[in-house]
């Protein structure tokens, strides 16, 4: 057992209202520089939809992530031999067209326009070339389905859905969508790190945050291609790759990352998970249907004396172990099993988990009459307007069982609380539902509390950074703002 600590995350999709506050918080702090305008380290997608960059989940196009050949892992986009031949031109590299060309507006014209019969307008200007452009797409062009069925129809997660199910997704006046906020997953088996020819990308040993060493990055762009979530971005101005840093300067000072802090729906949870680093490769090579369970099995019980001893032996501070014991993420992922990794079939072992959304679960019965309590208490989960297969493609590598388990438990908790507070459901029914959903009353209460009544300190259990043990001391959080990194002070200017 090689115990390591990882700062992990849970996003509760039922609570996401799609307001994009997280994206803006992130943009204002980190990606408002030249060359980063198009980057959204945090973005919120509408599902079904094409996402950002367009159809990023389609690995036939982008070649991101790993594939297992007889249990052996290989990157889809590159290998040692391929790096030698593809270093001049990366065949899997997306271009700006797959994202969008960032723009601003000619606001000055509103003030400077000569007097005339028309209202002056502010025309869009490219932030790359500075020329006037016609806007053809944006980072969020399919927001709330984008007013057209074509975005939803092009969602790669529709794979395996029957024509009837696809039609159901788009039925007039029965359209359905939910939000899917995304940041870097800070994976256990990151494709970006494994692909980097320069060894510039690395995972921090202490907390598992994945970073790009800006001095060592040479712009070979292999990381951009290898990340299946397309969360490493190429800065076209500096010639370096950049990615979500999980606001580590904030985390090191005990603050939640900006996107977590600003989340209006309070959907985000952050906490420590202890995991067994010696089994990552083996688990990431399991067949698709076993992946969710294999991933979960890497996460260790922080209350197990054996794990605690092994963690201590590995130099993990007692205070970090203590934080792991209070981790909300551990409860969601390991105890309750209602949070699932996104696209585990990419085999990067993402450490950001999602609670699949219940809200669109409504019967699609034609009369508009929905029978809530039938003999089969969970019938509406399988008849939901978001087909189970769709959610399974997102959170279960195409297999429904884990998603169904999470949704059943969530429904049981709701009905149990309903029996308690509203009273239109009998406690007898509620208890039966809990039993069938593999949930106790205590667990239901705990889920209810952490989902509905969670305070700041419940949601974010941040480990102390132990700066006194760090190789390099950082005095102030903003000391290196707008600088290119640590250890040297030079602005992020393009090379000669």
């Amino acid at each position, binding site marked *: 057992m090689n115990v390591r600590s990882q700062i992990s995350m849970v996003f509760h999709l039922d609570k996401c209202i799609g307001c994009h506050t997280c994206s803006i918080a992130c943009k204002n702090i980190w990606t408002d520089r030249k060359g980063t305008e198009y980057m959204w380290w945090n973005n919120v997608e509408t599902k079904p939809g094409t996402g950002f960059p367009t159809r990023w989940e389609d690995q036939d196009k982008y070649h991101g992530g790993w594939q297992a050949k007889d249990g052996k892992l290989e990157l889809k986009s590159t290998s*040692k031999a391929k*790096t*030698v031949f593809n*270093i*001049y*031109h*990366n065949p899997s*590299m*997306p*271009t*700006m067209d797959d994202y969008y060309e960032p723009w601003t507006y000619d606001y000055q014209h509103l003030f400077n326009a000569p007097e005339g019969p028309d209202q002056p307008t502010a025309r869009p200007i490219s932030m*790359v*070339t*500075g*020329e006037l452009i016609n806007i053809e797409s944006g980072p969020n062009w399919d927001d709330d389905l984008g007013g057209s069925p074509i975005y939803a129809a092009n969602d790669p997660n529709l794979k395996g859905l029957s024509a009837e199910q696809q039609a159901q997704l788009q039925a007039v006046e029965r359209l359905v969508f939910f939000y899917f906020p995304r940041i870097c997953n800070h994976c256990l*088996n*990151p494709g970006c*790190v*494994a692909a*980097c*020819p*320069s*060894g510039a990308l*690395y*995972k*921090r*040993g*202490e907390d598992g945050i994945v970073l790009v060493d*800006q*001095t*060592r*990055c*040479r*712009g*070979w*762009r292999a990381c*951009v291609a290898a990340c299946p979530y397309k969360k490493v971005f*190429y800065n*076209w*101005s*500096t*010639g*370096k790759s950049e990615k979500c840093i999980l606001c580590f300067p904030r985390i090191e000072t005990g603050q939640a990352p900006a996107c977590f802090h600003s989340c209006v729906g309070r959907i985000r949870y952050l906490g420590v998970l202890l995991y067994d680093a010696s089994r990552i490769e083996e688990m990431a090579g399991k067949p698709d249907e076993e992946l969710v369970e294999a991933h979960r099995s890497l996460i260790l019980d922080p209350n197990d004396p054996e794990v605690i001893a092994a963690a201590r*032996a*590995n*130099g993990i501070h007692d205070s970090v172990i203590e934080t792991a014991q209070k981790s909300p993420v551990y409860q969601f992922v390991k105890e309750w099993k209602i949070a699932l990794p996104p696209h585990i079939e990419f085999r990067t072992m993402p450490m950001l988990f999602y609670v699949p959304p219940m809200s669109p679960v409504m019967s699609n019965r034609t009369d508009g009459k929905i029978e809530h309590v039938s003999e089969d208490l969970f019938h509406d989960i399988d008849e939901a307007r978001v087909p189970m297969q769709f959610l399974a493609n997102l959170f279960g590598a195409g297999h429904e069982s884990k998603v169904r388990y999470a949704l059943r438990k969530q429904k049981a908790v709701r009905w149990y609380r309903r029996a308690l507070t509203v009273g239109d459901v009998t406690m007898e029914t509620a208890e039966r539902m809990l039993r069938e959903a593999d949930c106790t009353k205590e667990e239901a209460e705990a889920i209810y509390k952490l989902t509905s009544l969670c305070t700041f300190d419940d949601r974010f259990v941040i480990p102390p950074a*132990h700066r006194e*043990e*760090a*190789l*390099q001391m950082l005095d102030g959080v903003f000391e290196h703002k707008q600088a*290119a*990194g640590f250890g*040297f002070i*030079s602005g*992020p*200017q*393009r*090379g*000669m």
Partner: protein
Amino acid sequence: MSAAANQLLLVVFPYVAMLIFFLGTIYRYRNAPFTYSSLSSQFLENQQHFWSLVPFHYGIVTVLAGHVVAFLLPRHILAWNSVPLRLYVLEISALIFGLLTLTGLIGSVIRRLTVPKIKIVTTSLDWHVFLLLLFQVVSGLYVAVFHPWGSSWFSAALSPYLWSLVKFSPDINFVAMLPIMVKLHIISAYTLIAMAPFTRLVHILVMPNPYLWRKPQVVRWYRRFVPGVS
């Protein structure tokens, strides 16, 4: 060329160029490590990038490797060339790779002139590099066509000259007689070497060889002492 010019350009200049190269790259690596990048523009334009950058790099890497081999193993090259057929094969292959380089380079220049997004990320320094490279490649091709069998006379005449420079006992008897185009080709090569530290050419120095033998995953520890982790 006069004797003085020969001395200046073929003896003094190479030493100056190498000195600038070493001091310049080291200074830049230590003081502005952030600026060491391939400055790839593939993200902004993909199609022409493939058709120009791939032939250019494959061409120039092969041709450069040929120069290095002739420099290091002149006897082997001469032995190989002792059979005419083998000489023709070598010369024609070299010419093909040279033409590949030129095609790629011209494509690259056109791309940088015509694609607006690429124009934005092209500096005037880049244009100087392009001009010099163009001259280098065109003069090289001229020499290959009009002064043929270069693989043999490089091994016989230029290799000893270059070795004499390396051994700090310059001997230009071998090169002083060579045609003007060959000399210009040599001098412009020195200019490129001298310019390299101040241009994007430094990306050649950071070719990521360690990738071939490193473990896929990289973990860095910030703690001073990590028990149990080597």
